[in-house]
């Protein structure tokens, strides 16, 4: 046993390593990324890869699980949408080696497109779901998840949320690692899905649900505490907030903690409901536990009032907090609290939305396109990555953003609606490999006029600089053949492909104008590494004698390194990366390099 300060995601990784996981795959996505990174960093001989997308990750892991390996797949909640095709069918086939699919939900949302609830995927696919409430619990619970997976030959979902993923806690690590002796792949018709097999397996899955529900009623992290006529049901991080609120309010009631929201531990839930008048359900995202309890009350004719999101006693969007939970608990138990009043005289605070970093090549790329399209009707479809931040003023270059890879195809739909506009699609390198390629083929095949802008910064930047097929580095530390985006595009039939350094604004702009003049799909690849992986150039400075204070540099570029200084501007040397575009934009040649 050894104590270590670990982030929830690190605890999940080390818990999986302890459980004898043999193959780990995934695609980066906040708040899940550090799980796979930690497996790679502390690797005791496991195969670990960043797959090209979540669907591939789940399929690679499925193959290994068919051969008896314990496997883990990691992704964020929207990643499971991409992997839902293999997920739904794999639920019918099952696995031999334990498979845990870790899907991190993001209430808030803090860093995501949706507030979807992965517990629904468990219900939809009829798969068990584990919901940890702290890093130290996650460390042990993932081991349980592997055991249940093997006991029932089914993949299981493991669903932490941001506050578990990105919180640190003291975790007691066990040194001994569970040994898995994989049998290897044994040929059997059961690994090939067919309608007849699906029907037979569907019967088995339905028969398994009540058995799992019964089993989960005695699962160690599903628990009942306290007594009284009132009860609180909770799970995940909301359970921690509930404990905190009850401890602060010195409140007492019956508490039902649900660690496996699906299949619902019905027997334990009935024990909880018996003798209660009222129940408050405290959970984030959707009312999953609440609906299960409402259902059970109906099924067993229990006269218990269930309150929660459906009755507006708990907010139905955004993340919970100690305050929001304390307020709900105080009203429920009728223990008064003094709400914290906001200070009335607080000065106006600066608005600080996330922005593209100083020196970010995306700023130059967006600006070059914007200049090229000045005075023309153009629509700019964006995608998922750091470059979504190109939406901020003054660039204002993201007119649409939907999901991974959608910019390329949305631009095609816009073209069908507005053929007189120039329709641009921006996509980053990692997103291009993830789900961008089919959209390019679609445009080539259907002869759609769009301009594809590839923002190639040689990394997966937003999630913390993970390698991808274009970088030639793998998570096993190997160097693989770099896949060149220009060659992929050429092979797909894109006729006009130009590669530019975006920091050369004039030539970049000219290249965009030329691309926009072509019929069909034409591509401009803006290639320049992310500042986090490149060496900074010498910083720039403003000659205050030449600076007229027109602030054009600020108004055009919005670079965080350029600040107002009295009536002129100044470059913050600690932020500048020497990208030079402010010097190119300044009409008075007042900005210069190190010399």
């Amino acid at each position, binding site marked *: 046993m050894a*104590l270590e*300060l670990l*982030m929830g995601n690190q605890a999940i990784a080390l818990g999986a390593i302890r459980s004898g996981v043999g193959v780990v795959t995934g695609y980066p996505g*906040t*708040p899940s990324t550090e799980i796979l990174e930690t497996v790679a960093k502390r690797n005791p001989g496991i195969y670990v890869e960043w797959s090209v997308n979540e669907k591939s990750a789940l399929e690679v892991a499925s193959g290994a699980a068919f051969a008896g390996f314990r496997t883990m797949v990691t992704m964020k909640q929207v990643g499971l949408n991409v992997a839902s095709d293999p997920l739904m069918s794999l639920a019918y086939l099952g696995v031999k080696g334990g498979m845990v699919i870790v899907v991190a939900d993001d209430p808030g949302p*803090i*860093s995501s497109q949706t507030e979807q609830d992965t517990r629904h995927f468990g219900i939809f696919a009829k798969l068990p779901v584990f919901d940890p409430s*702290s890093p130290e619990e996650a460390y042990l619970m993932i081991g349980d998840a592997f055991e249940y997976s093997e006991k029932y030959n089914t993949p299981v979902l493991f669903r932490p949320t941001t*506050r578990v993923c*990105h*919180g*640190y*806690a*003291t975790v007691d690590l066990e040194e001994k690692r569970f040994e898995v002796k994989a049998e290897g792949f044994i040929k059997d018709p059961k690994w090939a899905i067919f309608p007849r097999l699906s029907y037979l397996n569907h019967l088995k899955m339905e028969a398994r649900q009540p058995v799992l529900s019964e089993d989960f009623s005695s699962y160690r992290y599903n628990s009942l505490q306290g007594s009284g006529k009132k009860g609180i049901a909770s799970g995940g*991080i909301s359970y*921690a*907030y509930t*404990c*905190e609120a009850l*401890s*602060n309010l010195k409140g007492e009631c019956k508490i039902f903690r649900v660690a496996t929201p699906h299949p619902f531990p019905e027997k334990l839930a009935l024990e909880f409901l018996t003798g209660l008048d009222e129940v408050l359900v405290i959970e984030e995202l959707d009312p999953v536990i609440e609906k299960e309890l409402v259902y059970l009350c109906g099924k067993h004719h229990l006269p218990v009032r269930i309150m929660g999101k459906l009755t507006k006693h708990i907010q139905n969007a955004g993340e919970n*907090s*100690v*305050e929001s939970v*304390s307020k709900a608990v105080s009203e429920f138990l009728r223990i008064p609290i003094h709400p*914290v009043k*906001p*200070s009335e005289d*607080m*000065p*106006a*605070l*600066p*608005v*600080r*939305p*996330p*922005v*593209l*970093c100083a020196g970010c090549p995306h700023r130059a790329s967006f600006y070059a396109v914007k200049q090229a399209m000045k005075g023309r009707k153009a629509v700019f479809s964006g995608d998922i990555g*750091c470059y979504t*931040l190109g939406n*901020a*003023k*003054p660039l204002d270059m993201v007119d649409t953003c939907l999901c991974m890879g959608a910019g390329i195809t949305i631009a095609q739909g816009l073209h069908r609606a507005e053929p007189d506009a120039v329709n641009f699609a921006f996509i980053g390198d990692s997103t291009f490999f993830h789900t961008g390629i089919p959209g390019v083929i679609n445009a080539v095949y259907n002869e759609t006029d769009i301009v594809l802008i590839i923002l190639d910064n040689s990394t997966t930047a*937003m*999630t913390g600089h993970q390698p991808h097929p274009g970088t030639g580095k793998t998570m096993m530390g190997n160097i693989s053949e770099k896949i060149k985006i220009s060659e992929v595009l050429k092979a797909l039939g894109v006729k006009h492909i130009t590669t530019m350094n975006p920091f050369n604004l004039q030539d970049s702009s000219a290249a965009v104008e030329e691309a926009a003049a072509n019929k069909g799909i034409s591509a401009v690849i803006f290639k320049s590494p992310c500042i986090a992986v490149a060496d900074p150039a010498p910083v720039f400075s403003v000659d205050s004698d030449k600076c007229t204070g027109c*602030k054009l540099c*600020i*108004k055009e570029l*919005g*670079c*965080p390194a*350029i*600040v*107002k200084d009295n009536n002129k501007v100044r470059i913050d040397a*600690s932020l500048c990366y020497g990208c030079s575009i402010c010097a190119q934009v300044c009409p008075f040649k007042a900005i210069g390099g190190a010399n």
Partner: protein
Amino acid sequence: MINCILAGVGGQGTVLASKLIAQTAMGKGKNVRTAETIGMAQRGGCVVSHVRIGEEIHSPLVPLRSADVIIGFEPAEAVRSLPYLKEEGIVIVSQKDIKPVTDSLANTNYEGTEMLDYLKSHVKRLIIIDVEPIFAACGSTRVLNIALLGAAAAAGVFDISLAEIERTIEHKLPQQFIAMNLKALRAGAKTAIKE
């Protein structure tokens, strides 16, 4: 229980500072929990780290009006986090403001001094750290987090001594950054004692 809020702007190193506090407390046999801002907001947005040290800690998030200390990496961010502070809590804040692009574009004329004045009139125990001399002495602007950590330790807010944090830095930071960060830590501590 000691509750601590570290409030700053993405890129200032709040996560590392909170980790060093937590690691040091853990080394002393304390239970710790933290919550970090990681992801999109890190790109120049507001970031807040919550650190809780004690025996039984449920929530990783510090409740409002419960922080014993706020370490403000930037004046406005310290003010933004002020609702977390206890009545008798202490604020340690860097004097240096960071003006966001939105401020220049909208001509809102944000000045850190206005925020520091507000803190002076609303916080009973306030330590303002002038970080510029520390940056000059250390030859880097990347030591803000450690300098503030030194100031907080010297002010005795975590029940952790300067020497204990020094040991954590020696164990946890890459070799090439240890000397510079120890220098920043001590410089921050010295400034706090003078205040």
